[in-house]
């Protein structure tokens, strides 16, 4: 397996890793690169990677060492190659820099199970849409150390409140509550009152990515995972990308067994996309000339590759990286809040089964509580 990242994407790859790095300082990040991404050219047939089943987990700090000097990446690095070493025990990142200088990083990794959330986009009763700024302005009021937040969605408003564990005494804690009225949202459709709790950190990771692009935030929730597909500004159709590429974020689910279902593949029509998995590719503002992000797909399926529409003639250039858009983020609630909503581990459908280490950590946490 070998991937080559073109100059313009190297810096973006480094930048895209940064929010993940912050989010996963204590954990591991999960990346899957597939040959179907046209911004990552591969040697070997497209089926190789999927067939080989290569998936790995790496310490975030290791990956960060490769992209240390973000500010000078685009000035010094001409090409980045990612390959497995002959022994198969090291992932090799090779940066070809100016003046013939080559920087090689042989990083250790762990094999990992694949995490592929399976869900149906249309199953949500509550759909809220707003500018990403709204989310940013909301989460900034919560202390950075806060782990989880309760979100209650009613027909008039959405309420964010910091989550208290059972043993915590409310009178000794600083409690923060933010209410957003329905009219602060561009679109507010609530079929049933819902309350969920999820990890605030994950939401914070998504925000810088969304902020750097022009996409709106859409929250879809029942008591199953909150689904946040970005909403592209459809008046700028020319720059829409049909790529289904996305990073995968290793996530924890509450319990249960995932159904072995294939990921739903999206149609390649412009306005109707069915993003399948969590994505974290940052995307530059299409009005400004900036590098498109590099991202990796995590589902198979047919998809058309469209070149970046700078000009008609450039559409056909092989290897021209297309623009990537922020796709979606899955935030798995740690518990449903409202009575009457689906409660109990057995009722909740697990979309992405946790890896072994995640299960062990969860068990330990449960035993402590």
């Amino acid at each position, binding site marked *: 397996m070998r991937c080559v990242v073109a100059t313009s994407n190297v810096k973006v790859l480094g930048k895209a890793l940064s929010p993940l790095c912050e989010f996963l300082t204590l954990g591991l990040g999960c990346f899957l690169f597939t040959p179907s991404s046209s911004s990552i050219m591969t040697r070997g047939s497209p089926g190789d990677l999927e067939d080989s089943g290569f998936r790995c987990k*790496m310490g975030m700090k290791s990956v960060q060492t490769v992209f240390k000097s973000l500010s*000078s990446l685009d000035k010094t690095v001409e090409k980045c190659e990612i390959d497995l070493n002959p022994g198969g025990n090291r992932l090799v990142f090779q940066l070809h820099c100016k*003046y*013939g*200088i*080559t*920087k*090689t990083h042989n*990083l*250790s990794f762990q094999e990992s199970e694949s995490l592929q959330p399976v869900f149906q986009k249309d199953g949500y009763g509550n759909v809220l849409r707003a500018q990403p700024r709204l989310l940013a302005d909301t989460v900034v009021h919560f202390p950075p150390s806060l782990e989880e937040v309760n979100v209650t969605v009613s027909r008039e408003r959405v309420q964010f409140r910091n989550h208290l564990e059972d043993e915590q005494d409310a009178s000794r804690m600083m409690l923060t509550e933010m209410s957003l009225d329905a009219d602060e949202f561009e679109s507010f459709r609530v079929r049933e009152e819902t309350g969920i709790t999820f990890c605030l950190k994950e939401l914070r990771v998504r925000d810088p990515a969304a902020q750097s692009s022009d996409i709106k935030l859409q929250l879809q929730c029942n008591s199953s995972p909150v689904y946040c597909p970005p909403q592209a500004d459809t008046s700028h159709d020319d720059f829409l990308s049909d790529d289904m590429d996305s990073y995968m974020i290793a996530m924890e689910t509450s319990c249960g067994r995932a159904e072995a279902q294939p990921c739903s593949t999206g149609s390649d029509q412009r306005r109707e996309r069915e993003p399948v998995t969590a994505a974290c590719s940052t995307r530059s503002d299409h009005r400004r000339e900036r590098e498109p992000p590099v991202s990796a797909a995590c589902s198979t399926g047919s998809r058309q590759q469209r070149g970046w529409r700078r000009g008609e003639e450039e559409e056909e250039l092989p290897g021209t990286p297309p623009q990537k858009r922020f796709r979606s983020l899955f935030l798995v609630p740690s518990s449903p809040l409202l009575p009457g909503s689906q409660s109990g581990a057995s009722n909740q459908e697990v979309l992405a089964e946790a890896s072994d280490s995640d299960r062990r950590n969860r068990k330990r946490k449960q035993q402590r509580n």
Partner: protein
Amino acid sequence: MPLSTQLEAGEEQYVLIASLDNARNLSNILKAIQFKDHATFLATSNGIKVTVEDSKCLQANAFIQAEIFQEFSIQEDSVMFRVNLAVLLDCLTIFGGSAVPGVTTALKMCYNGYGYPLTLFLEEGGVVTVCKIKTQEPEETLDFDFCSTNVINKVILQSDSLREAFSELDMTSEVLQITMSPDKPYFRLSTFGNSGSAHCDYPKDSDMMEVFQCTQTQTNRYKMSLLKPSTKALSLSCKVSIRTDNRGFLSLQYMVRNDDGQICFIEYFCCPDEEVGEQEQ
């Protein structure tokens, strides 16, 4: 010896007088070798050499030639003393460390020999400060016995390219491995840290490579903790010469241009790390 018991001297009795219109021409160079508190000063008619050592494995020397000084007079063949480098630098920058354009601190450094303090007269904007720094018995400095006839491999690189490589070194690695060879990879810096190994290769025909004279493949490891301080000298310099001799001893020579465009040199000597580790491919 407490300061008060050290003798006072008149101007005509000074053994060494060195004056600079811009004290930064001395302080900047000394900052680049300030990895230990104490330094040994050796003054001869050629100029001043300041030496700092660590663990008997590392030695850094800063050479400030007599021509750099606006006034330089020495009454003996050689004058040697030991001072606290941190204190000296604090005095040299007593009017503030930041460079205000057009404003410089003038320095007159005087020493009257064994038993006397090092006296600094510093002036900026009409304000004069006199500092007297206690001197100590000079300690014998190491002789690494590094001579050009024993040099096996030598490269001279432009500092710009090496600066980035040094700033990105994996600090979780205990050693920095330097490979020099007439064949590939020509010149390679390697680290072996917690996440894996990393290599930075410079081809012999790179634009950054000014001189490439490698006769034999040599791979040597040096303790990262010893070499890390040399990054300061690297950041000041415009060129660096890297040489290894038949024992694997490393000589790094940095060419530094001061504020007035004059050339000074900083030199680091380092012993190879004795522990033999497994080399990663």
